[in-house]
């Protein structure tokens, strides 16, 4: 795949994908572009709405049907479920780490093998445990042979 950045001085950024056919790679690129452009609508404790760049999200959790979104600076709430967050921004690195947690793989500081589980150190200082059910999926996502 050839990538060309053409600086023309125009006001709006334009992305043109030239391809022979719309294959899986092109579809993946499109999904990535769309998900990267989509903002996550959240609100803070004063119920002020914020449009968050999904890349800023460190992790999300559900507590009693409420979905909380953690960045390294703040805590927000969103109306989306964990499943929706994962499916919308999975290409950007959102990964289901447990029944009640989704983590942004790009924000993880380090991982630690704990037998069947994996502990993720986050920039918020928290340590998130990837459960036995989801740990093989994480290994697979990171390309570890013979996972799942």
């Amino acid at each position, binding site marked *: 795949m050839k990538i060309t950045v053409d600086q023309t001085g125009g006001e709006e950024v334009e992305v043109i994908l030239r391809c022979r056919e719309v294959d899986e790679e092109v579809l993946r690129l499109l999904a990535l572009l769309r998900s990267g452009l989509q903002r996550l609508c959240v609100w803070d404790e004063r119920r002020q709405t914020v449009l968050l760049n999904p890349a800023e999200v460190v992790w999300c959790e559900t507590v009693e049907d409420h979905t909380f979104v953690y960045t390294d600076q703040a805590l927000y709430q969103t109306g989306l479920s964990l499943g929706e967050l994962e499916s919308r921004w999975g290409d950007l690195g959102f990964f289901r780490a447990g029944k009640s947690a989704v983590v942004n793989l790009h924000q993880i500081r*380090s991982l630690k*093998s704990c037998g069947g589980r994996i502990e993720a150190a986050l920039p918020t200082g928290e340590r998130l445990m990837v459960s036995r059910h989801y740990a093989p999926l994480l290994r697979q*996502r*990171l*390309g*570890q042979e013979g996972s799942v």
Partner: protein
Amino acid sequence: MNGFLRWYRWGLGMKYHMGIYTVGLIFCKGVVNALMGEYEVDSLTMLEMLIGSLLFASAETALFPGGLDQPQPRGRTALWAALGNLLYVGGALALGWFRGIPLWGGLVLILILEAGLFAMWFGINVAMQADTADLNRRLRDYQQE
């Protein structure tokens, strides 16, 4: 309340290892008894084994407060192994856990204890740490993609 929660969390981690050690000990006792034609294990002996394991698991959490799966200083690992030998071999000798067993049988049990301690050390310090290093290398690759 915080103190209680800290104590409770400590208990959760400790009792898991205490359980493994106790089951291992009782299993060995059961096999030895069966080989000697006795098909039961004394409740008092089981209680003593549980207390021995409680002491060992408690000492373990004191030696490795960050958990066994953290990189460990060699001195503490050596102390941990020595304590394991002292508690289990000492307990067996002092309380007669394996009374009537021939010398070679005792040596086999000590060998099993050493193999168990080594397997635990290997699993935690070698296999898990290698896996952790591999996971982190792959995570960096993923993040740079």
